[in-house]
């Protein structure tokens, strides 16, 4: 039987598959570390009060936050933007993982 030569293409694909799995874990961790929920503003007698809307066990809950300063507001806004960005990037990674799994599986199937 002929000795199989090292294959750099297979090597790169396998390496990428491992890397993508690690990246998915990193993004999930990053998402967990961001503050959850969206701020909802309610105006009462001309004054702004804030509630944090979060989904807990499938139901939306409102947590009273009261008056918030500009610093806190921008922190929530920043977290919201980051959450949207991380979710989008996580979706890209999941698509990459599916592609690589198929590509590597295809090689095995052909080799069999």
């Amino acid at each position: 039987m002929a000795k199989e030569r090292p294959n750099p293409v297979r090597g790169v694909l396998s390496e990428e598959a491992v890397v993508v799995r690690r990246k998915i874990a990193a993004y999930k961790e990053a998402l967990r570390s961001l503050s959850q929920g969206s701020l909802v503003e309610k105006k009462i007698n001309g004054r702004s009060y804030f509630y944090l809307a979060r989904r807990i066990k499938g139901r939306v809950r409102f947590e009273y936050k009261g008056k918030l300063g500009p610093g806190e507001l921008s922190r929530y806004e920043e977290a919201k933007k980051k959450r949207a960005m991380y979710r989008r990037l996580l979706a890209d990674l999941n698509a990459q993982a599916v592609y690589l799994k198929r590509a590597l599986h295809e090689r095995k199937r052909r080799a069999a």
Partner: protein
Amino acid sequence: MKERDAPPDFCMQVLRLLHEAGILRELVVVGSWCSHFYRALVPGAENIGAIRTGDLDVLIPKPGRVKTGRGIPEILGDLGFVVEHSLGGYTRLVHPLMTIDFIVPERGRGRTAPVKVAGLGVNASALRFMDFLVEGALVFETEGIAIKMPDPLRYGLHKLIISERRANKDKAEKDRRLAVDVLRALVDYGKGKSIREIFDSLPKGWKAGIRKAIKKAEADDLEGLLTGEK
């Protein structure tokens, strides 16, 4: 050096952010992304490094000297990079399009623990042969950004040296192929004598590693060049 083609957009976005933060001048790009830039620098090297991962390896030649206001993770966080944890304390920045690893030259008896580069907010890994790789580093200017990278002569020889130390055979094969492609392009460009000169200046053990790798790559032309038969 003058640019002949533009590198992929995302890599340039990353380098631009580091440039704007005043950090890029302290860094040397050393990974397989170099091959992309070499395509623009060396005539006849248009096809080298076609197979590569999305890793960007960044060397910090003088980790104690770097000072910056914001750390690299914060700067690149704007592009969506996140820090990958659980790596024994090493900092790795990840993004669907790229992974960034930080390296410092290993000096003395070597160490396995990460090296803290406080000025950049990262923990780097110390690797051998880095001083050899970055000696006489080039500056490639593109889109108003000056990017430091190793001299392709040293890059090719370095890839051959490390290919012999790889445990992963596929990675070693990838290193050998890339090295042979780069060195052949340089020979065609008239740099054969310079390759020989650098090779002759290397320690005995390194030379043996290079010869062994060239033999495995079945690059008889390069073997002839280094043994003086060409």
